[in-house]
């Protein structure tokens, strides 16, 4: 038995000229909570659909729990749970009916696996007679997770489960995933939210069908060499314009209320920067050194990727 739950080797898939998934390889350990982080159109959904046997890859192969996605798709369908990005349960069935329906498809009953879904289902149990279509976004998502878990899957694939869900429900949801992980379920989750990356054991930063980086969130942050300064002033719009014009600027990006700024030089003089901004008529200037987060890393990696592409084109 391999200690890996998901093994992906050189998977590619194109739609016409667009390479949705471009030669990706990855191993996910058993019981790992793995995150696919990337913006819209990065290829996350396509990869998940290949792994859940809904889509055939153009080349390469993948195994889930030692079953090949092409040849043993029937076995895979018995052991994986999949929660698509779009709510895909029957909206005109009630909460309870949906759950019973999916349980019977997998030849099991709700009672048999109640302890597994209890954690999730208890939130929506008071509404079990309500039609699924009339649930709120957060409740829909909990119902979808319950249905994906009803057959005690070994591997769980979640496609952007927290998109369109409020902040409290998102937090609850990640708590549930952590609990499921303790029950020996391998989880692969995709998300466009960078702040959720830190909750995963390991993550892949995905862009244009490729993995830019795969590691633990801590390691990815530690690899980040440059010092970041968070800069605030009264006029944020003018500040970002001025910073981008400044000759010493390596990068400047909006982060909430502040701007994350990286200087070209290694030993930066904060006073010099402050004076420069004062000369540009900024008031209430606040500059402080901050630790990088995943989003900084993502932007940095994207920047490197882009310059690599432009260099390639130049040569």
């Amino acid at each position: 038995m391999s200690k890996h739950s998901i093994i992906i080797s050189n998977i590619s898939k194109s739609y016409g000229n667009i390479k949705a998934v471009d030669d990706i390889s990855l191993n996910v350990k058993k019981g790992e909570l793995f995150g696919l982080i990337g913006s819209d159109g990065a290829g996350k959904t396509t990869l998940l659909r290949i792994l859940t046997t809904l889509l055939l890859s153009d080349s390469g192969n993948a195994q889930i729990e030692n079953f090949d996605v092409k040849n043993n798709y029937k076995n895979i369908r018995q052991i994986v749970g999949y929660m698509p990005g779009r709510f895909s349960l029957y909206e005109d069935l009630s909460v309870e009916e949906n759950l019973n329906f999916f349980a019977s498809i997998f030849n099991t009953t709700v009672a048999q696996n109640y302890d597994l879904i209890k954690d999730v289902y208890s939130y929506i149990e008071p509404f079990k007679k309500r039609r699924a279509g009339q649930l709120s976004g957060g409740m829909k998502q909990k119902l979808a997770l319950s249905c994906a878990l009803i057959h005690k899957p070994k591997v769980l694939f979640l496609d952007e489960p927290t998109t369109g869900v409020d902040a409290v429900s998102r937090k609850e949801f990640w708590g549930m995933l952590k609990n499921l992980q303790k029950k020996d379920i391998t989880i692969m989750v995709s998300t466009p939210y960078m702040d959720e990356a830190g909750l995963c054991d390991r993550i892949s930063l995905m862009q244009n069908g490729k993995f830019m980086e795969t590691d633990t969130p801590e390691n990815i942050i530690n690899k980040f060499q440059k010092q970041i300064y968070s800069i605030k002033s009264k006029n944020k719009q003018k500040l970002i314009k001025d910073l981008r014009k400044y000759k010493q600027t390596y990068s400047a990006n909006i982060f909430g209320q502040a701007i994350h700024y990286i200087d070209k030089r290694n030993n930066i003089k904060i006073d010099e920067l402050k004076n420069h901004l004062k000369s540009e008529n900024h008031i209430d200037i606040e500059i402080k050194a901050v630790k990088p987060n995943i989003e900084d890393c993502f932007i940095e990696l994207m920047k490197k990727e882009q310059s690599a592409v432009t260099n390639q084109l130049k040569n």
Partner: protein
Amino acid sequence: MIPIIFIMPVVQLVILVYAANLEMKEINIIVINNDYGSLSRQLTDKFSSSPFFNVSFGNSHKEANSLMKKDKADIIMTIPHNFEKKLIKEKSADIQLLFNAVNGTKAAVAAGYCKNIIFNFNKDIIVNSPKLILEPINYKRINIINQFWYNPQLDYKIYMSTGILVILITIVSLFLSSMNLVREKEIGTIEQINVTPIKKFHFIAGKLIPFLIIALFELAFGLIIAKLLFNLPMSGSLLLLFVVAAIYLIAMLGLGLFISTVTETQQQAMFIAFFFYLVFIMMSGIFTPAESMPEWAQKINYINPVAWFMRVIRMILLKGSGFAQIKNEIFILTGYSITVLSLAVWRYRKTG
């Protein structure tokens, strides 16, 4: 949905059967009588007393022609001025009948009615008219008495209501099934189903059986209404009818499901389903006998399940045919169901 299931057959049967009238009534005939004799009046009286004609009198051809152009007249009958004289002297006279043949069927039927009335008139004047010297031998000919089997009163409603019943269950089976799977594609539930280990066969059976039950129920309901309203005869075995109906419905449901597998949106599915529905129904012989269609059209009808079932339902209900008489039709419908259904199962793939 439940009210629709009950209301649809009632509305269709009541409205369509009464409206889609094949009998010709209210034929407007304009008589231009230039003769003024008693015989010509006898002839026009014969037309007025017939339930099929509305007789009105005209003075000139010009006036009558303009009425026909306005669609106010269907026939113009002209009686020449020496009609009676000629009839007595020469024992034969001419009248002119002009038909508005925009609707060819109507004109032909109207011509038949006219011929019949004139034939009766001929018979009567020989018997009644003292002015004519009778030669009884002349009037000895074969008298044809028609007997209409299976529908002695020539009640078109019986013929029509069976056709409407077929339309009814065709709509239910073809349209509901063609919308169904494609709807799951649209709302995305098919994604969730496809990652489960459910078997194709089970999934398709789950899609078909509810509609099969609904359609058979509609047939039963429609039969009861037709019996109550039109006294539809039920000469044959109803069990046999329902067995054949089930086979036919599987074919139509399979076709609907096949449409559903090859389309991406409900609009597309609706469009294709409508295409098949129209062609199948119009060629099935619901209004006009399929046997009178041109030969190439009859050949196309071999692959028209509606035509086969239309024959069967009329044979069983009106003629009382048993299994032996319709086994050919059953055989073909069964073959059809198996083919279409396997095509649908084959086309439905769980992996994109």
